[in-house]
């Protein structure tokens, strides 16, 4: 443990840590944002077309059971990217997070009470506008819960990518193990935890900003 101040005292190490941290943020959050968009589109398809729902729910269960390391290694073979390309990790995590989010999004859309959608239609909303203005906002609390799980899961899974050579805080673990040096491992764990907590906090603040009506519940 006494090694940590010494480890951190080096300016070059600190610069490298910052770079790894930013890589980690990039590798975990890009898939999160992309999968939110994908999950909304797919969730809408599930909600509107029953057969799509059955297929996508089974498919997302299957995707989630593929081990991450295997998926990181398989993607280059399937789409022809280089083995070390970070895009492999981004695609793999996008698949996982989308698989995680599709079902709750579809369920949240289905849970919007029919008298509310009927009244929106009767007010003269066109279908797309109704979706964006009424159904989607009402699905946000459920979507947000899924996104929080997805963000934590992504932040932890990005570390696994270090095993196939992509960047991020995971390289601190692989380097530390190789050099039998504990300091980078501990710093890596702490930074991963702090990152997960900070991202979660941001997500909670964002959710609260988007859903003031949820906390208005009850009589004033």
């Amino acid at each position, binding site marked *: 443990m006494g090694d940590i101040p010494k480890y951190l005292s080096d300016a070059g190490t600190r610069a490298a840590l910052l770079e790894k941290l930013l890589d980690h943020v990039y590798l975990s959050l890009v898939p999160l944002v992309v999968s939110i968009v994908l999950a909304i589109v797919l969730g809408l398809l599930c909600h509107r077309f029953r057969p799509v729902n059955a297929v996508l729910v089974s498919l997302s269960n299957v995707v989630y059971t593929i081990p991450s390391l295997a998926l990181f290694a398989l993607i280059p073979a399937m789409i022809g990217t280089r083995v070390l390309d970070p895009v492999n990790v981004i695609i793999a995590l996008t698949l996982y997070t989308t698989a995680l989010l599709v079902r709750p999004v579809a369920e949240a859309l289905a849970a919007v009470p029919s*008298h*509310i959608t*009927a*009244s*929106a*239609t*009767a*007010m*003269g*909303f*066109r279908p797309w*506008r109704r979706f964006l203005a*009424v159904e989607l*906002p*009402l699905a946000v609390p459920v979507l947000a819960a899924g996104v929080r799980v997805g963000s934590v899961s992504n932040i932890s899974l990005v570390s696994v990518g270090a095993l196939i050579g992509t960047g991020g805080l995971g390289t601190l673990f692989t380097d530390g193990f190789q050099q039998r040096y504990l300091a980078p491992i501990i710093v890596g764990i702490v930074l991963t935890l702090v990152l997960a907590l900070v991202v979660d906090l941001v997500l909670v603040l964002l959710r609260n900003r988007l*859903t*003031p*009506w949820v906390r*208005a*519940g*009850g*009589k*004033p």
Partner: protein
Amino acid sequence: MIEFRDVTKRFDDGTTAVNGLDLVVEAGTITVFVGPSGCGKTTSLRMVNRMIDPTSGTVLVDGRDVLGVDPPTLRRGIGYVIQQAGLFPHRTVLDNVATVPLLTGWTRRKARQRAAELLELVGLPAELGRRYPVQLSGGQQQRVGVARALAADPPVLLMDEPFSAVDPVVREGLQDELLRLQAELDKTIVFVTHDIDEAIRIGEKVAVMRTGGFLAQYAPPAELLTRPADDFVASFVGKDRGYRRLSFVDSSGVEVAEVPTIAEGAPVESSSDWRLVVDADKRPQGWVAPDSSSVPGGSLYEVGASIRGALDAALSSPSGLGVAVDAEGRLAGVVTARQVLDVIESRRG
């Protein structure tokens, strides 16, 4: 004016919800569609704003076939109030009311200004505008639903069992409110309910529908009660229709008599008569029995109001004397049930 011309609606599962409906809803009236579940009343209503399209026949709004109008455009010109109000939980009350003006392209500022006017019109305090629907009572939510339907000032208002989810006392208040609004706004209102009492209370004309989508009778409420078209209508309007019909007979022929009174708080002397307690403004406060005990009063009726109220006042009074009051609630006199019945009898001829 809304016109149904030989309108039939068959659903994919083979059920016929509406069967050859021919009916004209006059402009500026409240017309009620009433009937048991499965009679096609809601389906008929929803064919007006194309939430449902007919299998055959034509629905005309102001002489125009609704099938020729793009549904969202059509709907923005027709107010709609649904059971449980159907307010958007994620929008403030003010923004809920501003919905249709915003859809039709008003600026947010102007739409909210209009919404605030409507909250006032339906009798809600302005500060409720900032709240979310979940923070309102059921009755308040229904008022917001009505305000929202009226926001773009549509000539036609469709109301689908709007008051059935609130308790009877609140419901009666909402019905009175609707009648008051209608006197002011003069909309063409189609109101769907399964409650015949509600239909009779608010409808200028009532369409009684029968399971299978048939129109059983279309008439003013008093006529439904006096001359039901068939056994179905007779049983649907209920056993005590003879009594309820009295709601449509005015009590002006009933002469009120004087009654001994006691000022509220004054000492009670023994007497063989029932005496009415009145406050300083001569408002009835209850009775004093011959044995000098105080007894709460029965119902009151306003002179000239329906004779049903006069009869009920007499029947519910502990003294057997129904108390009549003037428009300010001051004692006008008393009547007996016998007197009221005599007037009813004399009107039969």
